[in-house]
């Protein structure tokens, strides 16, 4: 409202003598065209082209740099992941090998133990058999000898029975023989 009033006041005071703000001066329009057009030509060549080019270049440079950095980061991450995976794999493998070795050792131990037990048992059995066999042998030999001795003694007794002297002699001789043996 106050603006319109002021405009009115302004219109009044000028009284149309030196124009109103709504006057359009063709000469000024022409000068405006000339000025803006020349400014456009000069600035296009002088400013916009090189500045926009530089800005684009810089933007491309920054974009490329960021892309490169990003790629490098991704590559590094990939390598780290790979290394980790490899390490894990190697660890697992090592674990497996150790486990296998332990298992194998355990198995071997058991086997050897078993074998040695069996062997010992067998040896004991053999020894027992041998002892038994030897015993039987010795016993049968002893039986034979006892029988022989008994037979011989009986024979001698029977033979020496004829005379007392001879009988005593014989017994002595026999005892002598026995002690000699």
């Amino acid at each position, binding site marked *: 409202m106050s603006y319109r009033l002021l405009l009115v006041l302004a*219109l*009044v*005071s000028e009284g149309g003598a*030196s124009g109103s*703000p709504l006057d359009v001066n063709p*000469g000024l329009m022409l*000068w*405006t065209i000339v000025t803006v057009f020349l400014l*456009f030509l000069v600035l296009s060549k002088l400013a916009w082209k090189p500045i926009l080019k530089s*800005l684009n270049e810089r933007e491309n440079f920054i974009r490329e740099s960021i892309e490169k950095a990003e790629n490098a980061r991704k590559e590094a991450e990939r390598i780290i992941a790979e290394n980790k995976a490899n390490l894990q794999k190697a660890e697992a493998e090592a674990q497996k090998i150790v486990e296998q070795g332990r298992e194998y050792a355990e198995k071997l131990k058991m086997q050897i133990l078993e074998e040695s037990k069996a062997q010992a048992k067998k040896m004991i059995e053999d020894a027992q058999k041998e002892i038994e066999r030897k015993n039987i042998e010795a016993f049968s030999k002893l039986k034979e000898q006892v029988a022989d001795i008994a037979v011989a003694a009986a024979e001698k007794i029977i033979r020496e029975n004829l005379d007392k002297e001879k009988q005593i002699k014989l017994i002595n001789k026999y005892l002598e023989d026995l002690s000699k043996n």
Partner: protein
Amino acid sequence: MLLNNINLADTLKKAQSGQDTGWIMHHILDSKELDLTPFGVIHLPELHLFGLDLSITKHVVFMWIAALILIITFIKVSKSYKKSLVPKGVTNLIEVLVLFVRDEIAKPTIGQGHEKFLPYLLTVFFFILTCNFLGLLPYAATSTSNLAVTATLAIMSFLVIQIGGILKNGFVGYFKGLLPHGIPFWLVPIMFVVELLGLFTKPFALAIRLFANMTAGHIVILALLGLIFILRTYFVVPVSISFALFIYLLEVLVAIIQAYIFTMLSSLFIGMAYHQEH
């Protein structure tokens, strides 16, 4: 309406006879002299050619000063880009504005092919911005508060919009594309006229908006200061000065915003003419 205003004005004039407010218009209107009051007045050369008044007026001088400032600044800026891609000093400020016009105005509104219109948009943006700011300096005049200047700028935008649209879509295709899709055939003649009128109202609005915005603030400041002399009392001084200062700061904002709006709308209309399928 206008007649009514004049009648009202007449009565006002009679009521306040002796109170001269011509000095407000003296500041706003174009003139053939540079008024540097305590130091004197420079009379500008008059020039009449082909029946046209081609005198170098105050606003012409300030347009040239704006152009000169821009050329000097941009020589400096483009030199600094040749030295290195890293901006420094003034280049930083200019770069922000250039990027603003490119990324916030041209790219979103025109989209593909905005590079072709960037030089025009940038020139108009910086020219209007500089002219607007020049108007805020003492002794300077605002060329953009002259309807002839804003109308010329709007006509240029109009030409760029139409030529851009016609070059992209072909002469017949462009005018066909003005019609919205899928309207009943009997609406075609009416819509064509409406759309054709729309082509002219857009730059008209551009011209009036810039002119009115740049004029209004100045008039308000001058009126606020004028209150001191009209009321003839010192008590109004702090009020007038603080309000004037507030309006001045507002004008700084308006100077930026109007440069932005003019460029933005030009760009928008270019985009609409260029990509008609939307």
